[in-house]
């Protein structure tokens, strides 16, 4: 069944979609001569290396893990020899330990990797263990370990799986392409997750402007009981967990709460795909779909091995179109700006967006004219203009009073500000002040 009525949320903004690569099918990006696999590709504590320099590793082999606290293992994305274990520049601008592997070009698969056709007989606990061992984390960007999402506290109960296919960031198209090219894997992943979470109902939230998605999903929706499609308005941040849940269920996650407080499990479509890959081929999470778009010669979608440097993707896309002014991991609304093209792609990175010099928004700030555009745009119903002012003054009490911690950093306020005030920057600064005061 398809919900024809398009769902959405209050507030938000409409940046031009710029889905330049929407009709470009995935191509496999040849694995580079060397991959650097960061040990921190998720929320929680970083993994610790399980291999030593000089050791031979195989593709899909677990090379890092951490059993203390919330964490997720990492896997070799090529076969070869560990050249070095040390700090590299990572996507969020911090240094992070990575295992650098010299690719032997053989792609020799780790012998422990086998498909899991038995998943229908396995217990939810067993499947959850498989998901953990495969290092599957939220691939929409947040990187929250998926197995932890499935471990619901005893006083909560899940009743709905929500597949996040909103892909609301401009430029990015890899989730759209997955819907079209890996429909079967996605449906399989949904069924697996429904079994683990013990829910009878799943909704696939896809943006109404995603061409071909309804046709691709239709045969499966007709066949599968309890899997339905919900069409979402093309608006930002439709893919933010809270707004997605609101759009589909009409309920608001309590402030400071989590989706499971409403009995909802939200999983990104790329993550669902990774679960599908796990049961059909046994592959752990060491590759993903990545969009390369913006000011590049050929905006494209690639299937990329984790640890591949951004430079390899840019090269594959024909290089820059003009002189680049900013390279962003993710999309332009919430993505991470990069200072180096050597930064490796992780499980969390869904795109590389390039802006030509002179086209990057920012700067030219003038005084606030109190137009209220930030207030109208804020999906969390905060007053960004006052939050920015209090962050500038460093008034902790006022920052709390204006609910700074309810800000999810969607950047809608800064996007809509005619005075070009870097509002998100002030929010972050304010949050730093709150942390420091604690």
């Amino acid at each position, binding site marked *: 069944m398809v919900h024809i009525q398009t769902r959405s949320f209050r507030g938000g*903004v409409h*940046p*031009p979609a710029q889905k330049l690569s929407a009709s470009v099918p995935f191509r496999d990006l040849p694995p580079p001569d060397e991959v650097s696999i960061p040990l921190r590709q998720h929320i929680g504590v970083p993994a610790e290396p399980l291999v030593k320099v000089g050791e031979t590793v195989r593709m899909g082999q677990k090379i890092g893990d951490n059993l203390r606290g919330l964490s997720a293992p990492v896997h070799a994305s090529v076969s070869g020899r560990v050249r070095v274990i040390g700090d590299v520049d990572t996507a969020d601008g911090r240094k992070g330990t990575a295992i650098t592997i010299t690719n032997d070009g053989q792609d020799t698969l780790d012998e422990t990797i086998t498909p899991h056709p038995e998943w229908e007989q396995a217990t939810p606990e067993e499947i959850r263990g498989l998901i953990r061992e495969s290092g599957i984390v939220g691939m929409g960007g947040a990187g929250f370990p998926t197995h932890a999402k499935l471990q619901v506290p005893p006083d909560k109960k899940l009743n709905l799986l929500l597949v996040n296919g909103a892909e609301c960031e*401009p430029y990015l198209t890899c989730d759209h392409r997955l819907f079209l090219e890996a429909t079967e894997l996605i449906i399989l992943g949904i069924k697996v997750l429904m079994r683990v979470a013990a829910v009878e109902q799943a909704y696939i939230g896809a943006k109404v402007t995603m061409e071909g998605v309804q046709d691709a999903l239709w045969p499966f929706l007709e066949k599968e009981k309890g899997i339905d499609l919900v069409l979402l308005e093309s608006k930002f941040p439709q893919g933010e967990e*809270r707004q997605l849940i*609101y759009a589909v269920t009409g309920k*608001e996650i*309590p*402030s*400071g*709460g989590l989706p499971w407080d409403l009995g909802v499990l939200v999983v990104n479509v790329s993550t669902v795909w990774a679960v599908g890959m796990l049961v059909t081929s046994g592959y752990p999470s060491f590759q993903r779909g990545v969009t390369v778009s913006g000011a590049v010669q050929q905006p494209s979608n690639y299937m990329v091995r984790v640890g591949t440097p951004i*430079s390899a993707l*840019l090269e594959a896309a024909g290089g820059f179109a003009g002189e*680049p*002014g*900013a*390279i*962003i991991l993710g999309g*332009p*609304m*919430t*993505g991470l*700006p*990069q*200072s180096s*093209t050597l930064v490796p792609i992780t499980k969390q990175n869904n795109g590389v*967006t390039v*802006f030509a*010099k002179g086209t*990057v*928004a*920012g700067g*030219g700030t*003038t*005084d*606030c*004219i*109190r*137009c*209220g*555009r930030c*207030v*109208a745009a804020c999906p*969390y*119903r*905060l*007053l960004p*203009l006052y939050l920015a002012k209090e962050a500038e003054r460093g008034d902790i009490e006022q920052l709390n009073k204006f609910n700074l911690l*309810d800000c999810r950093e969607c*950047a809608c306020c*800064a*996007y*809509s*500000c*005619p*005075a*070009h005030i*870097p509002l*998100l920057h002030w929010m*972050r600064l304010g949050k730093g002040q709150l942390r420091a005061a604690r």
Partner: protein
Amino acid sequence: MSNLQLRIQSPPFVHSGHSTQRIMLMVVVALLPAVGASCFYFGTPAIIHIVATIVTAVLCEALVQLLMNRPVTVRDCSAVITGLLLAMNLPPAAPYWLGPAGAIIAITIVKQVFGGLGQNFVNPALAARALMLASWPSQMVAFVAPFDAISTATPLVAIVNSDPMVVHPTLLQLFLGEVPGCLGEVSALALMVGGLFLIFTDIIDYRIPTGILGTIFLLSSLFAGPGFSFGFSLTFGVYQLLSGGAMLAAFFMATDYVTSPVTPKGRWIYAIAIGFITVLIRFWGRYAEGVSFAILFMNIATPLIERATTPIKFGEVKAK
């Protein structure tokens, strides 16, 4: 790949394209029909008033900022609007120094002394107008009939004085603007065209003009009896809407961002209160015209309204 100069900043990397300057220019564009109407009805004096007031406002802003050793921000065009709105509030037969004098008051005392754009707590043009009414009362009521220079009272004054000799203008004359009044307030048609343009281009919030005009219309329709006693007349409601500064104020003065609430609910309260006070002053106050004082009152109340209407945040657990 080396030697790349890459921007590192907090997102976003794209922007809506709005800018303060663009917004101000849109407001100027939206006022052009009213400027045209004013030149059409009142001729050369209208042009002289408008140009003199705008030029003074802009020069005064630059000068004050230079003297205060602050960056000169006349390029944001906000002084142009202050000057233009002030000129719109002048009676056609006023002496030519009156507009520039008002502009100096508006820019210096009301705006820059408080810290410039965004810091003033009342609308500069309106505060200056109030001061001018107090300082130069006779010059501020130098009204003339359109197309000739015969001095006359405005329709609202005529109603309050219930002068039997006065021939009241028809609704059509009020709508088109063929009535005595301030330069920019006479043509409801021209003001509505500009106002709707601002609403549909998302420059102003429909709530403010809707709240003000709706309240004025409703209350006037209900108090249409003799001496503003209880009595129902839709015609009188429309008459009140079309006369005086209601249209100019509702679309262009009350919608000033700086001095109106930023919260959606607050804007309704602000607007309805302006409409209410306007009718109060028009019907039972000493002045025939009340909308500018109503706005000034509510400008001052804006911080209170905002505090009372701060939206309930997303996911707020309601108190039991």
